């Protein structure tokens, strides 16, 4: 099995000289970092749920009202574009795991190929997210009439378009704020994932992995990248499906 041959009895693994978890320090620390990051994202999504429960009589926008655009068409198909984004991210997760698998076999050419495809997938995802934000911020053609109190304390009717941190034509303000914060935070993770992938690619191209004798860096970047995909799976469910 994967267990080390130097471990003779179960009690001795914490006695020093061997790695008790049978993973390297760097990989273990990546896991611990991901756990802490998972708690951050969980807190954000849980507070989204709390505010949604609180919303009561306020209108909580459903995704088919907000995210129903598709590039290069005027058609309004709900969930189509975000399903495509999900597909792109799952796909890039697959290419990442293929890169890790190739790294185990020291197949440098394959590692380069799969890492490049992963980077392309990540960039496509970021572009899609920018497009999604653009449509959410711009809003519908007609906008929505709302009553607001001006600086003199007088109520007046104005027309608002799209959503930002001050107004949201689709419904509850909290929806817009959480959308920007959570997808923005996730997007910044995707961005740093792309940067890490580029660094890994340069290291591989440099022949550094052969020099140090293993492809563990690719594996660690892979863990991070899969985590980003994992977070998106939850964001997809709680923002777009429910």
């Amino acid at each position, binding site marked *: 099995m994967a267990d080390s041959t130097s471990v003779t009895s179960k009690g001795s693994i914490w006695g020093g000289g061997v790695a008790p978890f049978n993973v*390297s320090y760097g990989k273990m620390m990546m896991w611990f970092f991901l756990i802490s990051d998972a708690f951050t994202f969980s807190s954000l999504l849980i507070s989204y749920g709390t505010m949604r*429960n*609180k919303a009561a009589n306020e209108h909580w926008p459903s995704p088919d009202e907000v995210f129903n655009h598709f590039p290069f068409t005027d058609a309004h198909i*709900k969930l189509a574009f975000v399903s495509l984004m999900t597909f792109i991210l799952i796909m890039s997760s697959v290419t990442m795991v293929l890169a890790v*698998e190739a790294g185990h076999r020291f*197949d440098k050419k394959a590692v380069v190929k799969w890492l490049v495809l992963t980077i392309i997938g990540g960039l496509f995802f970021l572009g899609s997210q920018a497009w999604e934000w653009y449509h959410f911020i711009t809003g519908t053609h007609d906008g929505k009439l709302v009553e607001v109190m001006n600086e003199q304390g007088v109520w007046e009717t104005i027309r608002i378009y799209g959503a930002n941190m001050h107004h949201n034509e689709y419904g509850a303000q909290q929806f817009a704020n959480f959308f920007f914060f959570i997808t923005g935070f996730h997007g910044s993770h995707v961005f740093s994932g792309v940067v890490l992938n580029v660094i890994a690619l340069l290291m591989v191209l440099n022949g550094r*992995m052969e020099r140090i004798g*293993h492809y563990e860096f690719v594996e660690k970047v892979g863990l991070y990248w899969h985590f980003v995909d994992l977070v998106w799976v939850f964001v997809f*469910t709680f923002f777009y499906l429910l």
Partner: protein
Amino acid sequence: MSGFHMDNYHQHTYVPGQEIAKPNTRWIWKVFFIMLLVTIVEVGFAFANDAGMGQTRFISFTVQKWIFIALTLVKAYYIIFSFMHLGHERFNFKLTISLTTVFLVYFIVLMMMEGYALRDVKLKEPDFFTRTYKDHHAAPAAGHGDEAHGEAHSDGHAH
């Protein structure tokens, strides 16, 4: 200590000029198709059980919600245990990583209940979350209920 990696982990050290083994990618594509299928089922379900345009749902939204959450957990399981390789790590490491998330269960239950409690407060007193500190104190008390409160009140006069 370059031998460290070789001895303790399922890592092989690179030997210059070594032959490249055949790829073993079947399991990766298997997991990919499972995740793709689950996503297609989710999106299809969202379409089929749509309450838009005056139609009624064939399954209540509560049931739909729990189906989606269950399918999401299925996907999460495959990402963590297959793609992130946690399923092949040693048992103590699996426990270390997965048991930590137990705290989230408590957190979720607590905060969902909190959300419903806040909703009840809001429905009872619609301006509870929008009125300011000053409004709280300027609110009509037992003695001077008829008094109008607005610009006329200075801060000092309010109480």
